[in-house]
């Protein structure tokens, strides 16, 4: 049994390093950028200029539509549309970028709501205090509100990231040879489905455990300023 496990590991770990982890990390970074942008669009209300207000209204509608669309449809269907569907209207995307696009858009939609609610959780009093000191909206966000919102957003964002790592197994359905797909191929050769799928499950569990350690470390850092923390 151990022989089977050990002989399968090089292939599985190669797939993990080549696809599972890069897809997860790249998609999370792009998703996070998308999430911050859409969350800010939905969060901020520009006051003065009428033209700016009009443009903002349109941007808000687009952001809301995007978040609604990707939260209301299954990730697998989204991947199928991007990889198998779009070519029929002439948009051909390779499997790897298609996966990145799909996972980024999906993660971004969820993380957008996480970040928006974290921004809303910072009390209005903090904005008032900053405004009386003549901080601009951008400065208030940058120096006061964002550092506090990150602390609130960190646990749910970590959840999203861990979820994303496991969801990368869906990339197998759009022909990517990621870890789960490779395990299926190995099973086809050695007829050990239970053993191989337990091994691949364990590998996912290892990645996710490492990530939850990272989460714990980051939480400690961002909680530093709260009661009992050392300066």
């Amino acid at each position, binding site marked *: 049994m151990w022989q089977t496990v050990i002989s399968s590991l090089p292939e599985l770990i190669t797939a993990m390093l080549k696809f599972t982890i890069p897809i997860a990390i790249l998609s999370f970074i792009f998703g996070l950028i998308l999430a911050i942008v859409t969350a800010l669009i939905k969060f901020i209300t520009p006051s*003065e200029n009428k033209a700016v207000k009009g443009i903002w209204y349109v941007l808000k509608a687009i952001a809301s539509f995007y978040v609604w669309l990707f939260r209301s449809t299954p990730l697998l269907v989204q991947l199928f549309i991007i990889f198998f569907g779009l070519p029929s209207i002439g948009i051909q995307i390779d499997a790897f970028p298609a996966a990145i696009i799909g996972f980024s858009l999906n993660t971004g939609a969820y993380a957008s709501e996480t970040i928006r609610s974290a921004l809303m959780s910072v009390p209005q*009093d*903090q904005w*008032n*205090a*900053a*405004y*009386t*000191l*003549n*901080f601009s909206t951008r*400065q208030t966000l940058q*120096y*006061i509100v964002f*550092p*506090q919102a990150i*602390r609130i957003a960190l646990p749910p964002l970590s959840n999203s990231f861990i979820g994303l790592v496991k969801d990368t197994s869906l990339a197998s359905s759009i022909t990517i040879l990621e870890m789960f797909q490779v395990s299926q191929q190995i099973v086809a050769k050695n007829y050990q489905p239970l053993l191989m799928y337990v091994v691949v499950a364990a590998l996912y569990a290892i990645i996710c455990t490492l990530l939850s350690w990272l989460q714990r470390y980051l939480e400690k850092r961002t909680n*530093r*300023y*709260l*009661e*009992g*923390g050392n*300066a």
Partner: protein
Amino acid sequence: MISIKNISKTFDDKLVLNNISTEFPSGKTTVILGPSGSGKSTLLRSLNLLVRPEKGEIDFSNLHIDYSKSISSNDSFELRSKTSMVFQNWNLFPNLTVLNNITEAPIKVLKQDRKSAEDHAKQLLKDVGLEEYADRYPSQLSGGQQQRISICRSLAVNPEYILLDEPTSALDPELETQVLRILKNLSDEGQSMILVTHNMEFARMVADKILFVEDGKIEFDGSTEDFFNKPNQRIENFLSGITLK
């Protein structure tokens, strides 16, 4: 000197400030008194645009703002740089150390260099007896200490006027006294202040001028002596309502 003219503000159809005009003399302490919900805080917050009245005007040294017209960001910046505010719940920035709470605006907004901003901040902390807390975070301090730090924060931007919105209402009596002592000193030093408070004893001690606000109107606008020694019926009702005698 700040003078305001015909200021009105409504919240959801309720008239909170009803055509108010008055003056806040420079170098003096003006205390705003009145029952809860009378519009005291709204009046104070109109002075730094945390609240935007629908109509009225403000004259502040050479700055003139008409609230009914659109206010340029330059004017609002200038108005806010002439004032700073101390809040009831101090509203320190929890993510910044005590020192950075005080230096953040001088460095980021007033573009002072870090060294002189920190020197000034340390001096201010020393003045309120908290110099050894510079590297702590606000959550590690008591309410009274936090409020003293927020006073330092408000002084660090060199405002002409400090606006104080019930600065001791959220404090225990013992902690309140520490804060009041500092405010008393500032008042004695001739710092221009506008203070909303429920503490009559303190009002009597520091006020050069008293505004009594009720139902969005100024019912008394005059000297501290006149307010306490020759109260009209309304003021007498108010004063007897908040004392045990």
